[in-house]
């Protein structure tokens, strides 16, 4: 196993997802929830996947984790490679369990994500018993240590309590302790702070960053909160209608936004910097019906820059600067206005 890891080219990213496509069979027809998503994450880095509800963010990470129920779900194309090894549709890689051991995951609503009839300590201890072969007693002792690491006071007492005796923020800390119990190389956080109030949100994000520094794990953060993205992300993937429409470093995506949807998101977000105050502009309309995906760009009907070709043909990924890319016809060589980056008033 060790040898296999060493054979991998050090330049290979920790996790690479390529052209992932996921469908769901429903009574209303087949929904193409994810339509070709690619991204990669490096060790110690944080990738944020941003997008509105129903754009396929959660489905993307859940298919990597093998949490999509099949049927009705179906992964129709694409690959996800961990250190170069295919993990889609598999439960182990190099003899190591993917779920829990290689990739840990935390969810949106900590109140319902923990088993109500099992003590917090037992739930944290469970992956240690399964993946590491700890005895029940050792695993529980380790669970207490992990709770302390997640900054839960009186961890020994707390470990013997049940989820209903915890607050939402405490439960999310416990979830983090549980997801990180087997020292995974990647932590997937699916809207980890959406259900929490703002002060607790900041504490949870701080905790995640602190633990990332200690362990060097990669974080895939799913959110629709651009504030959280700005605070946490090294890399950003903006998703819309099952596709990644803009991808790049946080600076590129925020300051040199290249896709009209990213610009729209920014214009809809308030800021407390007086120099950047602007009128909030909502994005009119709604995302396309993924039962029958449009022939052209999914954002076309809502896009202020839309051209004729946008409704006819799917745009390609256009590389801009470094690995910054946007899937938009505006960047095509034959486009009239071929902006290096789209204009937005707070950019330079």
């Amino acid at each position, binding site marked *: 196993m060790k040898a296999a890891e060493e054979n991998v080219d050090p330049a290979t990213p920790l996790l690479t997802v390529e052209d992932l496509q996921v469908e769901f069979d429903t009574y209303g027809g087949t929904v193409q929830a994810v339509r070709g998503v690619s991204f990669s994450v490096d060790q110690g880095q944080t990738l944020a996947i941003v997008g509105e509800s129903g754009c396929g963010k959660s489905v993307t990470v859940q298919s990597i984790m093998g*949490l999509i129920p099949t049927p009705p779900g179906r992964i129709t194309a694409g690959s996800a490679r961990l250190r170069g090894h295919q993990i889609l549709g598999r*439960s182990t890689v190099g003899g190591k369990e993917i779920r829990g051991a290689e990739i840990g995951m935390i969810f949106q609503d900590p109140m319902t994500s923990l088993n109500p009839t099992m003590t917090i300590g037992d739930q944290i201890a*469970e*992956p240690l018993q399964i993946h590491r072969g700890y005895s029940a007693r050792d695993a529980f002792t380790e669970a207490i240590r992990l709770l302390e690491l997640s900054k839960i006071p009186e961890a020994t007492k707390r470990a013997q309590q049940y989820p209903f005796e915890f607050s939402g923020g405490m439960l999310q800390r416990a979830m983090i302790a549980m997801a990180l119990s087997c020292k995974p190389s990647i932590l997937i956080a699916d809207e980890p702070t959406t259900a929490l109030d703002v002060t607790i949100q900041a504490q949870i994000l701080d905790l995640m960053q602190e633990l990332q520094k200690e362990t060097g794990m990669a974080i895939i953060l799913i959110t629709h909160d651009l504030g959280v993205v700005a605070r946490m992300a090294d890399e950003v993937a903006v998703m819309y209608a099952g596709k990644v429409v803009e991808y790049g470093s946080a600076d590129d995506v925020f300051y040199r936004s290249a896709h009209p949807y990213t610009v729209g998101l920014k214009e809809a977000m308030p800021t407390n910097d007086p120099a950047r105050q602007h009128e909030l502009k909502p994005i009119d309309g709604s995302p396309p019906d993924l039962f029958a995906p449009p022939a052209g760009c999914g954002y076309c009907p809502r896009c202020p820059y839309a051209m004729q070709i946008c409704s006819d043909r799917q745009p390609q990924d256009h590389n801009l600067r470094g690995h910054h890319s946007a899937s938009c016809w505006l960047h095509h060589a034959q486009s009239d206005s071929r902006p290096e980056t789209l204009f937005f008033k707070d950019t330079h």
Partner: protein
Amino acid sequence: MWLYILKRVLQGLLTVWFIATATFFAMHNVPGDPLTNDRAMTETTRANLEAKYGLDQPITTQYLIFLRNLARGDFGISFVQENREVNDIIREHFPVSAILGVLAVVFAATGGVLFGALTALYRNRLPDYLIMFLVILGISVPSFVVAALSQLSLVSLNTLVGFTVLPVAGWGTVMHMLVPALVLGLSTMAYLTRLMRSSMLEVTSSDYVRTAKSKGVPPTRIFTRHQLRNAILPVVTVLGPAIAAITTGGFVVELVFAIPGLGRYFVEAVQQLDYTVIMGTTVFYGAFLVFMVILVDVVYGFIDPRVRLDS
């Protein structure tokens, strides 16, 4: 926890008192009189009985006497079967009903949980359809029909084999108990199966089962550690009323299988206006059911930690 149990027991005593009072006054409003029937009764017997129950006294005094006797655990003497104390009738026949009832409840609960979990696992596949078909049958066909049919098939079975595999009726050995208990518990088992199925499906799609999957917990362990205990909670909740339905509903099955249980005496007492037996058995049944419900609640507290701190 102890405080919780104490609270429940006190509530239970209050309930029993309500049952006793309601039965007493209801019996008083029934037309007729325990001592006027077609059987000849000497003046001495009548006077003795009137003195014992204070039947010549005003109703409030009678009620107080009734309560006093009840507190001592004395239900009085049967009016119809002379020289037979109600306590003796209960002592003699209740254990038979209780064994039958408990066995039926055990059948119903284990069968319900097992089949319910099975149908949920095989959702919308053959085992699910098959079991759910039988469940509908079990709920809709009344127990006396099932009882008669099972007797009929037992007769066929015994003649086919040439010796008595399972007795058709009567009481005594474990063999006598199996079929009646199964028949008695059948409709409850069907009901619990349906309940367990839906609760199991709900748990299967819950967030914490998804969390368990994301931790890499193997499916069998998810089933035993995460799904079963949570799915069983609604089943335990209705187990109290289910025990009530089984024990009070037992007399039909007791009659068909000629089992000397308490249910038969209860029904006969009502038909013959045997006041003391009616009141005695009613209060006794009531107390028994209250006790079972408390027991179920305490068990529930052990399964669901959220209930424990409610005291």
